[in-house]
């Protein structure tokens, strides 16, 4: 800010170039450079340098950079990482910037997704693209089983799974729930109204009646052999197995829209669809998780004003749409969804419906660790090594331990 004002005041003819360092992750890091070209034309005084970081290494690299004092000005981060960065005091609170902005407004975004960027009521990131989980299914198999239109309640859904498994024609599972993913049990829990954590995120609440009901349902699917007991790596090629009809449903996210279109053989391309998640009761659709990536500005940055300009540019509806065209990432803003590109695509439409019903994960720095422990523990129940109650009680014990430091820090700060 100051630099811009100073430069304007001096009125020096060739303005000194301001360099904004932007870390983009994975595929997004590749396309954002191209996406930023019009911005560069608008702002010759700014130079936006994009550095692409592989997604798998991003989290470690960002934290190492922060500790080493080498953080960029601006970065794309998974929205579940934000609480961690807040604990580190690494990211800039954006409320003051938001107040002055004419481009970014809270109402323009999917509510649940916006919320993922709030920690203790303050905004630390601007949603860039969204990610939630819905059902991808084989229309032919579900039709043959008499399941269409897609079930809207858990009861119908379970009944549908049983009928799919009973279909003639080889060994088949109804649904794929990889045992090393936490999203599925967590989503089912959210649908039952589980808070996952209690006491302002300082204790595990997995033994609660709400989560236990969801967990019983989740385990029942395995117990009835409706889902294979396999982790992601054990499945091998998901697309091939889906094409061969080895399973008929798969709860997964938007990145698989592109992958399915690219990787499925022509014979299967026409026979798959997507549907929002069924609900445990009549309040269809059931909620799903609010994932995705946000743009954050680092507190150490000396070019916050320029970085905010980049954030605003990337948040423009037309740029969000162009971003979808380049990357297949779903816009975090609502308006681009009325464009025919998105609105007329039936496989994408289910995501739009679902995005109106998403909830954020507990916003604590320990969440990833908790979620990892969740599927590790859940596997004991799937394998029948422990009862559901034992697993959930054990999980709560572990989680309480993970959160011990958080409780102490909160207590010290005089918080609840």
């Amino acid at each position, binding site marked *: 800010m100051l630099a811009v004002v100073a430069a304007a005041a001096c009125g020096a003819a060739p303005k000194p170039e301001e360099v904004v360092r932007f870390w983009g992750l994975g595929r997004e890091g590749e396309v954002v450079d191209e996406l930023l070209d019009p911005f560069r034309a608008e702002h010759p005084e700014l130079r936006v340098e994009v550095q692409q970081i592989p997604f798998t290494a991003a989290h470690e690299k960002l934290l190492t950079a922060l500790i080493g004092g080498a953080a960029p000005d601006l970065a794309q981060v998974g929205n579940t990482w934000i609480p961690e960065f807040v604990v*580190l005091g690494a990211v800039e609170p954006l409320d003051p910037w938001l107040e002055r902005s004419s481009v970014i407004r809270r109402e323009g975004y999917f509510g649940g997704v916006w919320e993922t960027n709030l920690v203790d009521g303050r905004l630390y990131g601007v949603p860039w693209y969204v990610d939630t989980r819905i059902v991808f299914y084989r229309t032919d198999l579900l039709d043959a089983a008499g399941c269409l239109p897609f079930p809207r309640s858990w009861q119908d859904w379970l009944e549908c799974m049983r009928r799919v498994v009973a279909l003639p024609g080889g060994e088949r599972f109804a649904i794929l729930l990889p045992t*090393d993913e936490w999203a599925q049990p967590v989503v089912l829990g959210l649908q039952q109204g589980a808070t996952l954590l209690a006491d302002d995120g300082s204790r595990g609440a997995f033994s609660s009646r709400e989560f236990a009901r969801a967990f019983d349902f989740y385990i029942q699917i395995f117990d009835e052999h409706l889902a294979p007991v396999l982790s992601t*790596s054990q499945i091998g090629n998901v697309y091939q197995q889906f094409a061969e009809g080895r399973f008929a449903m798969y709860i997964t996210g938007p990145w698989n829209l592109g992958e399915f279109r690219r990787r499925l053989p022509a014979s299967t391309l026409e026979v798959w669809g997507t549907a929002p998640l069924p609900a445990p009761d009549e309040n269809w659709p059931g909620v799903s998780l609010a994932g995705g990536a946000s743009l954050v500005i680092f507190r150490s940055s000396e070019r916050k004003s320029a970085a905010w300009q980049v954030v605003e540019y990337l948040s423009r509806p037309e740029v969000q749409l162009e971003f979808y065209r380049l990357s297949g990432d779903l816009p975090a803003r609502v308006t681009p969804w009325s464009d025919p590109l998105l609105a007329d695509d039936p496989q994408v439409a289910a995501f739009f419906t679902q995005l109106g019903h998403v909830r954020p994960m507990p916003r604590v720095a320990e969440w990833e660790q908790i979620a990892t422990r969740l599927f*590790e523990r859940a596997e004991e129940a799937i394998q029948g090594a422990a009862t559901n109650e034992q697993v959930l009680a054990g999980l709560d014990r572990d989680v309480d331990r993970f959160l011990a430091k958080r409780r102490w820090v909160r207590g010290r700060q005089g918080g609840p």
Partner: protein
Amino acid sequence: MRSLHRGEARAGWLLAAPALLVIAAFFLLPVAAGFALSVTDFDIYSIGDPDLVRIVGAANYRTLFSEPLFWKALKNTLYFVLLGVPATMGVALAAALGVTSGVTRLKPVFRTVYFAPVVTTLVAVAVVWRYLYHPRFGLINGFLGFLGVDPIAWLADPRWAMPAIVLLAVWKNFGYTMIIFVAGLQAIPEQLYEAARLDGASAWQRFRHITLPGLAPTTTFVAVITVIGYFQLFAEPYVMTSGGGPVNATLSVVLYMFKEGFRWWNIGYAAAVAFVLFWIVLAVTLLQTAARRRAER
């Protein structure tokens, strides 16, 4: 020492001082700092605000011993050591014998070929081996299929993932051990073999009664070095099974430490893991040398 003059002793210390200082700065100090860390709860909160550190005494160690994942990692590591060390040493010894007794002209060629994996970057090696292990298109399953064996999901099956890592580690490391064995073999006096041959000893008898006893000190050294190295298993599962999968079947103690430290940022706890591993390795090494001494007696 007593026979040295004081001046000589001082000169000795002076000459050794630079090396000792370096050892103190780069080894003793970090070890001390590591131990200090292991009795604190240094974590992500402490990185954000240095006031948020507590001295917790043995709490990290208590948690560690009650954590099933640590025991799983320790079991995996022991499995790797018990399978990997004898395999590496066996292959290395066979290769060393082959290299020293084979056709003279080709000796350097074989030595280079066997040693090449040792100096190749593990990440590059891992990429190639991931292809070899591919369940459908991999060379290894192709070969097994030729023999009529059903394809194995090497890196995805919890039962096979660790053996697959062992195979890679053996291939990668035996060259180094082989070179040491070659040196050991060359130190055995040729006259012994000649005398044995005159007495009518068979090739196996010569190996059993001359080569093996002659190599005993080398074998002890190699065993100690390999055990220490293999207890620190990290890079192979880190790159091959994306950090310990499937279902933590290849999670090693060092990998567990790395995850706790750099994924969950429980630095104090991770330091405790490092120290426990240090004591285990020390104990095993002492046992090995004690066994050696008893055998010599």
